Each structure stands twice: as structure tokens, then as C-alpha cells.
């Protein structure tokens, strides 16, 4: 059956709405359920049995890209250099512990598998970055937001955001550019130049950005903010820079204007809408056979990278002066991986080698499915686990 795009988009939203409802019912985060919804109504499950299904196509891909752009835009919007500087000692200490313990594990697994350096670095990023969306949501749901453990968790997430902006810049130059190292160097220079320009605008061009997003009505303000974000993201992609990083800087620029709060309120539903499409699209693109083929690697990663986050989170909590039980909570909370691991995997998929195109995206989906459910569950039962392992 050749469905019109409108029907497909309608079916998409129906599927994520059902997925979200199920997630809430079973007390889990929505992200894995959006992904599963994509897998289920996609060509690999419904399509295989000959039922009407949603086919991957340009329309959904563009909507999903908007999801990436708005996810990162919000990361930038809520990212404050002043905040980072205000408690830089503790944030830097906890953030560095998190980085040096978790990132190398993924890289090491990649290298042991015989992958190239770039491929291994992608795996490092995927296992390193915790899920801001899921963790923040869980903090609110569990009421931990009012406790002291929320400080190191949110602080570490801010640190990760900064690392991931730099990381995506470097990695996108490595895959979006040509093959040889001199081409990579040129692309990296172009990317760096573009991003430095964006950063300069974000830091010193507040007046300009202020005028750009200053609409007379809510409607005009919404349109201006969306236009600015998507256009800069699109231009970035045109010249071989990650649209995600560009959106991050646009978010940072808007965040320093006095319209920050208005834009945040206006765009939050837009982000939620397209982010849901992004996760759905990830599921849609997932090849179940390829996912099954990576199950072994996923299992190894789960076994290795759950304890590393527990340890790094625990040490980070200790640096914030928390007791053992709360520090363990920090670790349990940081276990969840989600949206940014998938953003990194999407970037990897634009690479040239079979490992980048097939293996990494497939394993990232499996990994995120397991880690988001495992992380959310660990948070809920952290005190029980803490007592079980003999904590006082």
C-alpha cells in the first residue's frame, strides 16, 4: 500500500503516543519506547508480515533531523558558562572523573574488536554520555531534585554537554569530510572557523541575537527562533559541520539574551515533538538482524559500562561531600544513556566504513534500550542495591 506522507506522519505520531503511554504505565522513560515504536511499525516488523507500515523516507528523516537540532538547541539554551564557572572546581572534578573513567572503556572495547581509531572513538562517545533528558526527568519523578545528590548529577551533565559539543565537532569533521588526513585537517579547520564565528556571536553578539529573536508576538518570536536555529543548523550541515553543534551554539547565543525564558517556553513543545520523531526514526532505521548481530558487543558494553558509571558517579558525589548512600545514587543515576548516544550513532552512520554505517548505529540502539531501562530501574532501587552491596 502506497500511503501518502500525511498518513505516515499520522501513523508515526500515533505510534509514539502509544509508546509514551505504555512507558508511563510501566514507570519507564519514554525514549526506549519511542525507539521500540519505530521498530514495531517499521519495515522490519509490520512490513515483514505484509501489514501496512511506515517506510523510512525523506519526510520523516527531515523531521528527525529537526529533532536533533532542537535537542541540541536546548542543550545550549540551558547551558551556562557562568554556571560552569561558578562552581567550576566541583563540576570540573566530578566531570573529569566521569570522562576519564567512562570514555576510555568504549574506546578500548572498540580497539579490542579490531576497529579503527575513529570507530573506537565513536564507541567511546556513545558509552560516555549519560542521558540528560531521562536523568533529569527521573530526578523530578523520584523527588531527588530537592536532595543534595541532584547537584553533582546536573553538574556532571553540564560538563558532559560541553565535552560532547567539542567531541561532535571533531568527529563530524572526521566522518563528514573526505578520507585522508589532510582533508580531515582542512575540514576540521573549516568547522572550527565556523564554530568559532558562532561562538563569538554567542558570546559577544548578544545584541544582534536579541534583535533576531525579538518578535512582536509569540507567533513571530516562535517563527524567528525556529528559523534561526534550523537555518544555522542547515548551513552548518551544508559546509560539513555537525548541525547538532551549530544548534548548540545557537542555543547558547539565545540563552544569553533576555528572550531566553520566552523562547524556552515557546520551543519546548517543538523540541518534544521532533525529538519524539527522532527516536522513532532511529527505531525505523534499525535493522533487527544487524541489531541481533551486535548483541554480544552490547552485552559486553552493558557489563563493563554500568559499573564504570556507578564508580565515577560515586566518586563525583564524594567530591561534592555527599555520604556513601547519596553518592551511590549519583552513580546509579548516571547509568542511563539515551538521546546523545543516539545522536552520536547517527553521525557515525554518515561515515564510510561498514562498522560506522551498520554496526555502530545498530549496537547503539540496543545499548540505549538496555541502558535507559536499566538506569531508570537502578535509580528506583538504588537504596536497596546500596544496602545489598553492604553500604552503610
Amino acid at each position, binding site marked *: 500500500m502506497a500511503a501518502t506522507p500525511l498518513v505516515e506522519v499520522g501513523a508515526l505520531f500515533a505510534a509514539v503516543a502509544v509508546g509514551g503511554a505504555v512507558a508511563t504505565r510501566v514507570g519507564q522513560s519514554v525514549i526506549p519506547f519511542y525507539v521500540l515504536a519505530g521498530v514495531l511499525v517499521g519495515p522490519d516488523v509490520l512490513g515483514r508480515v505484509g501489514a501496512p507500515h511506515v517506510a523510512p523516507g525523506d519526510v520523516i528523516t527531515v523531521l528527525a533531523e529537526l529533532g536533533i537540532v532542537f535537542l541540541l538547541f536546548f542543550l545550549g539554551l*540551558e547551558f551556562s558558562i557562568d554556571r560552569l564557572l561558578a562552581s567550576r572546581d566541583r563540576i570540573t572534578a566530578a566531570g573529569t572523573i566521569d570522562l576519564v573513567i567512562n570514555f576510555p572503556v568504549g574506546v578500548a572495547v572498540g580497539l579490542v574488536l579490531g576497529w579503527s581509531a575513529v570507530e573506537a572513538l565513536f564507541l567511546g562517545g556513545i558509552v560516555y554520555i549519560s542521558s540528560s533528558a531521562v536523568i533529569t526527568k527521573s*530526578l*523530578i519523578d523520584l523527588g*531527588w531534585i*530537592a536532595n543534595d545528590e541532584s547537584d553533582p548529577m*546536573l553538574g556532571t*551533565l553540564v560538563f558532559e554537554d560541553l565535552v560532547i559539543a567539542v567531541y561532535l565537532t571533531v568527529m563530524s569533521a572526521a566522518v563528514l569530510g573526505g578520507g585522508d588526513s589532510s582533508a580531515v585537517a582542512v575540514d576540521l579547520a573549516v568547522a572550527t572557523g565556523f564554530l568559532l564565528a558562532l561562538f563569538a556571536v554567542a558570546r559577544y553578539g548578544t545584541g544582534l541575537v536579541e534583535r533576531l529573536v525579538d518578535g512582536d508576538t509569540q507567533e513571530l518570536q516562535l517563527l524567528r527562533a525556529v528559523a534561526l536555529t534550523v537555518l544555522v543548523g542547515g548551513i552548518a550541515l551544508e559546509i560539513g559541520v555537525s548541525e547538532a553543534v551549530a544548534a548548540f551554539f545557537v542555543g547558547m547565543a539565545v540563552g544569553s539574551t533576555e528572550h531566553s525564558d520566552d523562547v524556552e517556553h515557546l520551543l519546548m513543545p517543538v523540541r518534544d515533538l521532533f525529538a519524539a520523531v527522532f527516536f522513532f526514526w532511529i527505531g525505523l532505521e534499525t535493522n533487527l538482524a544487524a541489531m541481533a548481530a551486535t548483541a554480544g558487543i552490547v552485552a559486553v558494553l552493558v557489563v563493563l559500562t554500568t559499573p564504570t558509571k556507578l564508580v565515577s558517579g560515586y566518586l563525583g558525589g564524594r567530591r561534592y561531600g555527599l555520604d556513601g548512600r547519596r553518592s551511590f545514587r549519583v552513580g546509579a543515576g548516571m547509568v542511563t544513556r539515551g538521546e546523545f548516544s543516539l545522536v552520536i550513532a547517527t553521525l557515525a552512520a554518515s561515515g564510510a566504513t561498514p562498522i560506522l554505517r551498520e554496526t555502530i548505529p545498530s549496537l547503539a540502539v540496543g545499548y540505549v534500550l538496555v541502558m535507559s531501562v536499566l538506569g531508570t530501574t537502578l535509580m528506583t532501587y538504588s537504596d536497596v542495591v546500596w544496602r545489598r552491596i553492604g553500604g552503610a
Partner: protein
Amino acid sequence: MAVYESDLPGVGKKFEVDLDDESRLVVVIHNTGKRELFIRPDPDADSEKLFELSDKLARQVGTIMEGAYFQPIKTDDIETVLSEESLIEWVKVPAESPVAGETLEDAGIREETGASVVAIQRDGETITNPGPDTTLMPEDTLVAVGSREEHDELESFVAGE
């Protein structure tokens, strides 16, 4: 009384207020406007959620708590007590006030009443630390520090009584 404020990136802001006993009141203001109130019975305990309010409701409840509708302690206006003998009050400059159009220096508010004007609210904007050459306009709201008697003086002085 100590109030601790901290940022919650991606969520909003957190305010912690020490209560008289060991416990602490925790207010989380979400970027969405939602307010959540928690109580932490002692430093080691987990915060227990008391209730949550929408932005609008929180403002209404806040105004009631502030005493804008009913002041149990005898006072005529909204005021903030700094210490036994000094408080902050908000005084409106009536349209026909004799001081309207004069500078702070010419009006001689401090000399006449003893109260000091620390800020002027005008058309939704606040002029902090107004200098002696600041001109008072009709409909201004003066934010003044002084004793209760000085505030009474100020009010009648501004009204031209």
C-alpha cells in the same frame, strides 16, 4: 534565616530555607512555572514532597502568604521588616502630590521625615539608589527604609498633608 539558592540546569532553580528546627523547606521552581514544595526533616533525610502548584496558583498563594490580603500584625501597608526599628515600605506618590516634579534633594524627604528613599518604581521599571538630582514623578512608587514613625511621616508628607 538562611536561604540557599542553586541552579538546576534544564529544570529551573532550587531554594532551600532553614526552618526553626532541624528541618528545611525546599522550593523547586521549574522553568515551566511549576512550583514543587518539599520538606527535609533533617540533613540526612530524603526530601518529602508536600505539594505542587501551577505558576498562577503559586503566585496567588504567595500573595496570601505575604499578607497582601490580610495582615495579622498591625500595619497599614505592605512592608518588610528588617529589624525591630527599621522596615521597608512602598509609598505611592499621588498625582497632586506637592513633591511631584521636584528632585529628591529639593523635596528634602530625608530631612523632613527621616525615611530614606532607596529605590523608585516607575512604569514597571526600578530606579535603584536614586541620586539627589532624581526627579519625582506623579504615580511613582517610593521604596523607603525607616522606622514606623518615619514611614508615617513620609506618607503624609508625600500626600501633602
